[in-house]
């Protein structure tokens, strides 16, 4: 079973575990899963997601996920 860990920041935490721990997402076998695929599956509205970090670095929505990856989803921000 291939698992990735997902962490949420800001208002997006409502899509994670209530206790604030890392959520786990199981990658379906025999198919390529991107960040965007995972967002859709978890029901996180894409337009509310800003930066996506995979293993500590900015990633694209098209980044392909692999076993053991750690993903952080940040909300869209404004200001300065």
């Amino acid at each position: 079973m291939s698992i990735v860990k997902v962490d949420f920041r800001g208002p997006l935490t409502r899509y994670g575990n209530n206790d604030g721990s890392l959520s786990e997402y199981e990658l379906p076998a025999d198919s390529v899963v991107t960040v965007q695929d995972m967002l859709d599956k978890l029901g996180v509205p894409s337009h509310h997601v800003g930066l996506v970090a995979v293993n500590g670095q900015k990633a694209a929505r098209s980044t392909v996920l692999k076993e053991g990856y750690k993903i952080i989803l940040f909300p869209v921000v404004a200001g300065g």
Partner: protein
Amino acid sequence: MGYINSVLRVNLTTGEISREGLNRKWADLYYGGKGLGIKYLYQELEPGTDPLSDGNKIILLTGPFTGTIVPCSGKLSVVTKSPLNGAALDCSVGGNIAGELKYAGYDMVILEGKSPEPVYLVIEDGEASLMEAGFLWGRGTLDTEKELLKLHGEGARVLSIGPAGENIIPYACLTSELYRQAGRGGAGAVFGSKNIKAVVVRGTGGVGVADMPGLLKAAQKAMREDLLTDTNLWAYTDGTPMLVEMSQNSGILPTRNFQQATFEGFESLASPSMQKARAGKKACLSCGLGCGNYTVKGAARVEGPEYETLSIGGSNCGIADLEAVVKFNALCDDLGLDTISMGSTIAFAMEMTEKGIKDLGLRFGDVSSYLEAPELVAFRKGKGMELALGVRGLSERYGGREFAMQVKGLEFPGYEPRGSWGMGLAYATAPRGACHMSAWPVAEEAYGERDPYTVEGKAGLVADLQHYNALKFSLILCDFWALSFDLMAELLTPILGREVAAGELELAGERIFNLLRLFNTREGFTGKDDTLPDRIFNQGLVGGPGAGKILPREEFTKMLGEYYRLRGWDANGIPEKDTLIRLELT
């Protein structure tokens, strides 16, 4: 409606205090805050005025939203000529004092001249007077504010300077409600040069609007459908500390005087660490977001630190100790110093030591010398005399210009331009120098999906954002609310009692930005000042997704040229006549 139509003018030299009508023609073109302030300053200031002389003026402004139920409209705007660089300076401070000023019967206050003795100004329901302030001189902002509230009642609001302003440190700030600052560019030094320690405001009046039912409806809709949604609520759940981890992951977290773009100790400064140390929340007048975080860490406490302090006063100084950064923030607030310029200056001094140029006793990561610096600067003691020069001044005296991280004399805030090329253009062209409040393209580049390592499309992006912020800070609305021009127009229409179009607001933003350019051009700034330190052009980034990246000089020059053309400015960055006519600036 929306305005009180009343301006308080205080001549500190003679002690004369007068009331005059608001210039409505200017208010129609510039609205309030930043825009209206620069219009008054441009008209009233003699070109070439020494910012620290009695000829300079400092203007405190509200806007048409201030004091109404429009959310996020609590900020006070401050406009003057900067003592740090001689450019037009506008900055703003949160809290409640802006609303209080309008409730006291004024849209704005113009302070001019220079008092022979330390004074503070009291405004209470239309009446204003100057009071002797000798007993407050030398005291920190926390103590000053508490003392003034004892004298004038807990309901009053205070804007004050600390010892740094009194001692005319060019990056001294103004403080309100203990921990809120009009931070950048040295407004506190202008107060100090005029011998004015504080402004105390108490008002019990109101603000008239043309269509109250219409405003209630528009404000309620804006709150429900826009403000209090996942687009903005990061400001409440985390506030700006969330940007630490975002900058780290996207490779723009300033580290060791911008030598690196990621910091090995970032986790101790990031939002999860800040949340563990959170002791409470705070919001400004009329705000539905409440971005302020009270933090207690060990023996240190402050409202903050915001991202700019965590990055520039933390990673950029090689400090991974949250308690130390909280202490640094509290010290700067009380002494009345801008944490960004102070932190940047310390980081520059640390690299000067590292490079063997000059040793002012500061080392990357050394907490004890880092925490000693603010007081030495504020009181101009020992090495504080040198650090008070700021980054540009130090580099001119000792060298190291290629890594002096400043533009037009204003030190860099917390975003690495090699990892966000549009931000480089924003720093280079912001009227007050390296500034994150003029435009913030990092949201789309480093934190968004737009390619940060290209100049394609960035000239237009930065110009549009500059218009947007110029208008937003004139109305005055908080930068954390990402609302559209359409929504701003919907909220302004019932206040003014006339149909306001989004296009009219966008054009006003462009007008305000161009007027700032005219001010700076009149003061001798040219296109040659629209540049960046050599490090950005020559030295590859260390660490993170942008490792090895520079912002190539020829690409920057191309982007700047396109920006001038888009703006209708000539090759030297001077607005063309047609542009001035189109913007009603002739």
